[in-house]
């Protein structure tokens, strides 16, 4: 049995564009989405930049176009917009029985529950508040999108911090490989919220300037918001409908570091093991990798640890690598899927994207990312890293079709 897992559709909305084409254009032309906070109402908006989707909830609603706007959180609208684009791109019907929807989110409907949180205990609620009661949990957006699109097969949502949507793609790939599903819509969505801004502020890992991953001067990450989904499809299903493969998911791994509740080990053990295991699943040697979309948040801890893991795995011949969080900010639960979409675009367009604002290598791991768009590259296999709190480390290998 040929158990190849294809990617046959992409959908994305992020700070650098509302669809795949505008994201690609911004990446190629090095236009970052990181800017002063204008939409989110927070005390910290003058202190920290972020990568906001430049649409009000109302305009986002018009773009995502659900049947009724009642009760749609920003996270769910972002998700719906990206899922619709991915489905249209692949040309698959989400209402077939063997289609699964695997989403991911860390904060779920937090963007709508935080402003109404204190009102929830009032006796009477006005409708603009009442419509968001019960939209808080991370699975709500997935259920709402499934109901909107008539998906009645396998449905789930993963919440493993910043590796969430990489894990959604991994689960979808395994379910196709083991013959349980033909098609999986896999990805994630997270809207920016005061909750996450204040949370990362409390951990003191937000940069007051646009982030500088892998640079000696880096002082933290910038938060972002996004939704991104890929359509995963079995070989049999893809061929039966004469559809085109954009790329294949050939490797994946999730490893827990069991080191610390938030921090990564200084030598990058978890990152190293996740990358090694993903290469093993793909049956590839490290030298087969053409490009790495690193986790690269811009925090002192992550980049030092990930840099050491790269040195340990690849020695002196580290492939071209970059953090596209320099464009999108850290989109948390959506990050793994955002970067899987970019990995697929790198393969399709023979490019390595830039790690913006890099000037000086880190003393603890002097590795040098790609700092301007590299064109005319032959991109055969891309490694995409997503690491999260709780020691949750995931790597995907995405390969040319």
């Amino acid at each position, binding site marked *: 049995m040929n158990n190849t897992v294809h990617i046959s559709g992409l959908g994305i909305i992020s700070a650098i564009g509302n669809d795949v084409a505008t994201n690609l254009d911004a990446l190629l032309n090095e236009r970052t989405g990181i800017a002063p906070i204008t939409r989110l109402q*927070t*005390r*910290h908006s003058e202190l920290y930049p972020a990568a906001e989707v430049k649409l009000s909830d109302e305009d986002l609603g018009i773009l995502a176009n659900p049947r009724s706007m009642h009760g749609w959180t920003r996270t769910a609208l972002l998700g719906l917009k990206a899922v619709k684009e991915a489905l249209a791109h692949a040309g698959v019907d989400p209402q077939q029985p063997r289609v699964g929807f695997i989403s991911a989110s*860390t904060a*779920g409907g937090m963007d709508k529950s*935080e402003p109404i*949180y*204190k009102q*929830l*205990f009032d006796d009477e*609620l006005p409708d603009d508040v009442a419509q968001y*009661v*019960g939209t*808080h*949990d*991370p*699975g*709500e957006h*997935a*259920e709402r999108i*499934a*109901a909107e699109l008539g*998906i*009645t*097969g*396998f*449905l*789930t*949502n*993963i*919440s*493993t*911090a910043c590796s969430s949507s990489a*894990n959604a793609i991994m*689960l979808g790939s*395994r*379910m196709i490989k*083991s013959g*349980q599903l033909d098609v999986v819509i896999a990805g994630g969505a997270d809207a920016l919220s*005061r*909750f996450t801004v*204040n*949370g*990362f502020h*409390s*951990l003191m890992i937000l940069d007051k300037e646009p982030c500088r991953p892998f640079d000696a001067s880096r002082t933290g990450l910038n938060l972002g918001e996004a939704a991104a989904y890929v359509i995963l499809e079995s070989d049999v299903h893809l061929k039966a409908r004469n559809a085109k493969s954009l790329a294949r998911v050939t490797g994946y791994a*999730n*490893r*827990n570091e*069991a080191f610390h*509740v*938030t921090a990564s080990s200084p030598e990058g*053990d*978890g990152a190293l*093991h996740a990358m090694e295991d993903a290469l093993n699943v793909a049956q590839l040697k490290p030298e087969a990798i053409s490009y790495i979309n690193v986790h690269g948040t811009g925090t002192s801890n992550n980049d030092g640890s990930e840099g050491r893991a790269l040195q340990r795995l690849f020695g002196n011949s580290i492939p071209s690598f970059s953090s596209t969080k320099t464009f999108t900010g850290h989109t948390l639960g959506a990050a793994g899927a955002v970067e899987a979409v970019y990995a697929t675009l790198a393969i399709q367009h023979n490019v390595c994207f830039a790690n913006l604002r890099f000037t000086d290598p880190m003393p603890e791991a002097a590795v040098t990312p790609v700092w301007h768009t590299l064109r005319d590259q032959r991109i055969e296999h891309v490694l995409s890293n997503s690491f*999260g*709190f*709780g*020691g*949750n480390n995931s790597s995907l290998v995405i390969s040319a079709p």
Partner: protein
Amino acid sequence: MKPVYITGASAISPQPTFDRDDLEKVVAYDTHPLNVIVPDITGYVDPNRVRRMTRHTRIGLMAALNALKRADVKEPSAVIMGTGDGCKDSVARFLDNMIDHDETVANPTAFIGSTHNSLAGQIAMAVNSKAYNYTYLQRGLSFSSALMDGLMHVGSEDARNVLVGAADVITPDFYITHRRTGLWKNHAVKNLEVLNSTDNGALAGEGSAFFVLDSEPGKNAVEILGVDAFFKPGEVHVKDRAEKLFAKNNRTLNDVDLVLLGYNGDHTQDRAYDTVRAQFPNATIACYKPLFGEFYTANALGVWMGYSAIRSGSIPKEIAMQGRSSGGFKNVLIYDHYQLKDHVLVGLGAV
């Protein structure tokens, strides 16, 4: 796919279920939400660490470690869990602080604790597991997602000793906000009489259950015959789907001697269970939510009850709605729906 067995289980619930495979004496409550009976942590977790843990983390970690102990496994090859609402106790603490102080007072501990995979991470730290570690949050499909993932690991991907479980707690905030949506009964109710209700709203509860899955049966094993979980608003053809599930194991529905149904006291929602009940005239029909209450991952305790029925040969007579409550059970069907949207069928078989 290889056969997959439960080789050890643990449940922490509003009933005395901890560190045993049967439920000898049922506790009756006069009001709800039902709260778990928190077991003595001595010997499981460093008491200094426990003081800083939320209830969610505490009961989940205890159930996980106890399931491993009962299966005689030191280090699981994967930790996979489902929780409908994760660490909502830490989330509420963080939000209260953020709003009350208008974003001027930082609370990193509550933020770290509000990361929904923190419990699975704590379990991994406690047993030094550097392996696969997933947390599912999909309402009534949270536990079944974890269980299906575990089945795939053991049945199709050659893993051994995979830890699968669920934990959800009820907080005052959650109880009040969801009572507003009509989820809970807004009056006191006796748990063992809740199925006599003629009004809507469920009995609210909480709990945690963990299971060790393996491809070798060992001495205490119960086989997992299959899991079928899906999202579909409205009633579904449970019998057809159950037939397919048991047929894969060369069994028919006549072989099913115990059907555990997710009756929760909500009159409208419970009608879907009446339909299923009528299709199994010869089997014992029993419920489990009058014991544990309704919550996103209550079906994990339903699976524990099925495991317990096969292991101990009996169920508490208080939950038997039709047929015998003792004398041994060989094939068990658990059917649960959450709000008539998230449907879960699990088949268990004696080894």
